[in-house]
């Protein structure tokens, strides 16, 4: 399958429940694996400061389901969440895998990286020699990785882990490493965005990225552009409370400035998404989530005013 066709499939076939997208992609991934000198994508997954929601979101992938991803797409060599090995056995695998698959493995980082106090707010393991902070671990793995993927908004931009007042000095991976990061943002990530990005890496290499380092095929358009309730917005017909069927702009919807394909992709086997549930989009894929989205139920212009107020107050204070 040509890359252009893959991108077209991702964008056009995601809008129904019949899983035509993944049905179309899985056999292709299989074909790819059957070719000589090709193998599954080796993945090393480091969990840092987050809520664990992205690994749960990943478990919700359908067509391919999680077991199919493990069997057919990726070799998940290290993952605090999934690996059977434990304790020092797990750390030995991490060490071996990073050497054996040098410059081939994909480093997946789940969560923001605390940098204050030498990163002591997140320790991925303790050894006889001392604590290994998330900061140290990902800096050590940086050079050996083929690609680095930040899964979720915390890993991409800091997210809730870096929300004000950010006591731990948490930051997105892009602010900690010096190389290109593929950001697959979302709080949590939609499993299609993550598994689709891995599929792209496996079959075609690096996907085209937007200015925030995110795959264009998932984040290229705003929620607003594809929203089923766009006609209400265009007629100034707004909801007055959660549960209403009109446009959610009046309830703080972030759709107009949030890049994501939720309206047509939807969530959890593609059955629903926040606006369909009669609530606003809260802009969870954004660089400034959650601080730029709260108060969640205040309209966009008013949120920005509040931001301005905050800025001017803090200026006055300083």
């Amino acid at each position, binding site marked *: 399958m040509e890359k252009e066709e893959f991108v077209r499939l991702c964008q056009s076939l995601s809008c129904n429940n019949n899983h035509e997208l993944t049905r179309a992609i899985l056999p292709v991934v299989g074909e790819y694996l059957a070719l000589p000198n090709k193998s599954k994508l080796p993945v090393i997954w480091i969990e*840092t400061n987050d809520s664990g929601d992205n690994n749960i979101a990943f478990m919700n992938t359908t067509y391919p389901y999680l077991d199919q991803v493990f069997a057919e797409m990726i070799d998940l060599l290290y993952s605090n969440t999934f690996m059977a090995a*434990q304790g020092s056995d797990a*750390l030995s695998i991490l060490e071996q895998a990073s050497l054996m698959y040098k410059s081939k493995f994909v480093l997946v980082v789940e969560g923001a990286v605390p940098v204050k106090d030498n990163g002591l707010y997140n320790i991925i*393991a*303790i050894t006889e020699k001392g604590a290994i902070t998330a900061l140290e671990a990902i800096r050590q793995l940086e050079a050996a990785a083929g690609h680095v993927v930040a899964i979720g908004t915390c890993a991409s931009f800091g997210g809730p882990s870096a929300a004000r007042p950010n006591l*731990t000095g948490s930051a997105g991976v892009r602010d900690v490493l010096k190389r290109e990061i593929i950001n697959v943002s979302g709080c949590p990530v939609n499993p299609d965005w993550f598994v689709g990005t891995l599929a792209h890496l496996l079959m075609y290499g690096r996907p085209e990225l937007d200015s925030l380092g995110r795959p264009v095929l998932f984040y290229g358009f705003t929620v607003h552009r594809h929203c089923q309730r766009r006609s209400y917005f265009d007629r100034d017909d707004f909801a007055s409370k959660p549960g209403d069927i009109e446009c959610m702009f009046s309830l703080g919807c972030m759709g107009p400035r949030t890049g994501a394909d939720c309206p047509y992709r939807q969530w959890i*086997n593609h059955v629903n998404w926040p606006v369909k549930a009669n609530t606003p989009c809260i802009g969870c894929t954004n660089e400034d989530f959650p601080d730029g989205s709260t108060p969640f139920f205040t309209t966009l212009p008013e949120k920005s005013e509040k931001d301005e107020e905050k800025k001017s107050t803090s200026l006055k204070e300083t």
Partner: protein
Amino acid sequence: MTKQSIIFSPVTRLSGLLSVEAIIENGRVAEANASGTMFRGYEWIMRDRLVTDAVYLTQRVCGICSLAHGAAASYLLDEIYDSELTENAQYLRNIMFAADFLQNHIRHFYLFSLPDFARMPDRPPYLGQNLTDARLGFSDNERLVGHYFEAVKAAQESHQLLALFGGKAPHQHSFVHGGVSVAPTADKISQALALIRSIGDFVKSRMVPDTELVARVYSDYYAIGVTPPRLLSFGLFKFGKMNENNLWRGGVVSDGRYTLPQAQLINEDITNSWYVSGQEKGEKGEDYLPDPYKPHAYTWIKSVNYTGLPYQVGPLARMIINGFYSGGTSTMDRIYARTLETLLLTELVLGWLNKIKPGPPPINQKKTPVKNEATATTDAMRGALLHSAKIQDEKVVRYNIITPTVWNFAPKDKNGNRGPVESALVGTGIPRSDMLFTILGRTIRSFDPCISCATHILDLKKNVEYEEVF
């Protein structure tokens, strides 16, 4: 006399980052320190925001039990804004809540716990399993591993059921104060019914017999990982206009005596936690500040106790307090009670779906707060959960959360009392050194560890007026 100190790190197959350091003396665990090694400071994050942000924002505390935080925050807001809930709203809320429990319990048993008892295939992510005490016969082992892969779908279906009404998962959108923003309609109810029947079939035909098999083959674990018989639950599944009734009652059980929980009897202790000691929490209500360099401290998790003693929380506590289970407090009792609860939940969800009357979104949000502070309690998947807030002009002055992990994974307090996990580990026999991780891993995971949930601080005493919460 042999004495050896060991490090078990990372403890994998759980949510978040956990390490355990232990002293092994004459083939037994003589001491154990459980370290939660991540900190985010969530209560600080809630400060100065509108209290109505709490439902969506506090769900981000924990990805595997996010709806429980959304529920606790919604109950809190219901009290602050004086919500009146309809029957449909409570059914829908409880259906979503139970669905999140189902995904958690199914994932915990198969994806996290089963590799402690069954040999997994020799490929990633199962390489290096090193199961040094594998006792299942070949065909039993193969069947259970097959069910691991079937569990992937049953857990996904549980989240699909949640998302039908909740918009997405984790971090659902429709369960907010005042009710639920999604209309229960025939199409959704029938889709949900199909899903719960499929999940129920999986639980009845796979998870229950698999648990029974593991419990039979590894029956010595009814005598391993035993904690002191102190159990606590805040109750679960609220009904009534004002959330006044719990379907499953809360309770405090100590040596077989039952009392109602009272929030003012909960105390915290940071002796061995990485927070600044001796800090005065004065009028302004300053929260504890982190101190990662504090000498002798070993965890970000604080110690919490009830009447000065540690209490175990979780499915075992709920099942015993509600009279559904009458076993002990061992590793296998915890595993068994969780599966029993899973089975009961599938039946509850089916019943609730049949009771809903189709209609408009059951939601009515009032605009004006009638209180400036409130405390809400419920149980989450792993046990008792408390949210409390103090507000001014609808903005959060303080927001406090006590998660189940803070109970179960509590470090030693100032009197040297061990928390439930540490007390479960101490005394465990380790016949051979290569069995260390296998044996300790089984007991640690029986508590369903979630360290993301522990990544914050709490401060109850000075800022919230307490009354009996039940």
